[in-house]
């Protein structure tokens, strides 16, 4: 099965705590692991994805590099506020290749997903792709 990229499904990154114009947050949802969003120093770092409609999500897969601790929050509101905690995970360090982690979200419905990177294995970390399983 070919999974469509999140942006082709109408999703958007509405908040990102770091900005390098050569590595914009849109790279997270373009379905391509070669493009990435890079954090530009200090933690925590976060980004928020908004879906076009409330979406049932059983799991989310994150392709990243040097992310150590990740928290995921969600809401079912039109606004990117008042999030509720869903899960958190300590990711293993990889060298020379991306971290790829499936994070179960238990089929909950969401309009926004908020990813908070509370720590990293380096000063800078990158997120290459977020994809969802319905």
């Amino acid at each position, binding site marked *: 099965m070919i999974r469509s990229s999140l942006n082709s499904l109408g999703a958007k990154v509405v908040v990102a705590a770091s*900005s*390098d*114009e*050569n*590595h914009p947050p849109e790279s997270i949802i373009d379905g391509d*692991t070669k493009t*990435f969003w*890079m954090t*530009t*120093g*200090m*933690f925590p770092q976060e980004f928020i994805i908004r879906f076009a409609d409330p979406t049932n999500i059983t799991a989310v897969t994150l*392709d990243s*590099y040097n992310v150590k601790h990740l928290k995921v929050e969600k809401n079912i509101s039109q606004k990117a506020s008042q999030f509720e905690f869903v899960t958190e995970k300590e990711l293993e360090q*990889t060298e*020379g*290749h*991306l*971290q*790829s982690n499936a994070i179960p979200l238990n089929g909950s419905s969401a309009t926004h997903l908020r990813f908070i990177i509370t*720590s990293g294995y*380096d*000063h*800078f970390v*990158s997120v290459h792709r977020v994809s969802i399983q319905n």
Partner: protein
Amino acid sequence: MVKLRARCLLVGDAAVGKSALSHMFHSDGALFQKNYSMTTGVELLLKCVNIPETNDSVELYIIDSAGKDTLVEACEKMWGELSLLCLVFDLTSEQSFANCSHWMERVRAYCQGCHIPGVLVGNKTDLCARREVQASVAQEWAQSQGLEYHETSAKDKENCDAPLLSLAQAFHSLYRERLETTQNLGPG
């Protein structure tokens, strides 16, 4: 164009001039505190540094931490996750230079193996008649610790922005390096 953010720890013995230096840097040389007032906790100063020949900048969160030994432990709790180190000693005090190795040990233990770029600063070049630490000696030790060495005078406004500019540049190079590594990564 990118704006980086770095948390820079400023440490060294009490009264070597850490706060004077950070205020000089922060105010672009407008403010030298004539009266000594010991820092008893941690002071946070924010300063944006442009990286020459680029459109990039580094926002430095300078953590000016008390040097007095009885206060250090309490201050350590407020250091947070560090990106850069600025270690300062007084050129007229051999003891403050000798203690730099203790400061390095403390910072290394705190960072738990994470590499952070750093500079060593010999302050008070204006008091040349009372100098106790020779530049070559300080330079050699700095090199052995992987630090870049600078001499400053906060009072005479001499060279005060050099240490923090070189730290900002080191952080910027680190970012560039990491970008390149990230671009060459294989799939997960």
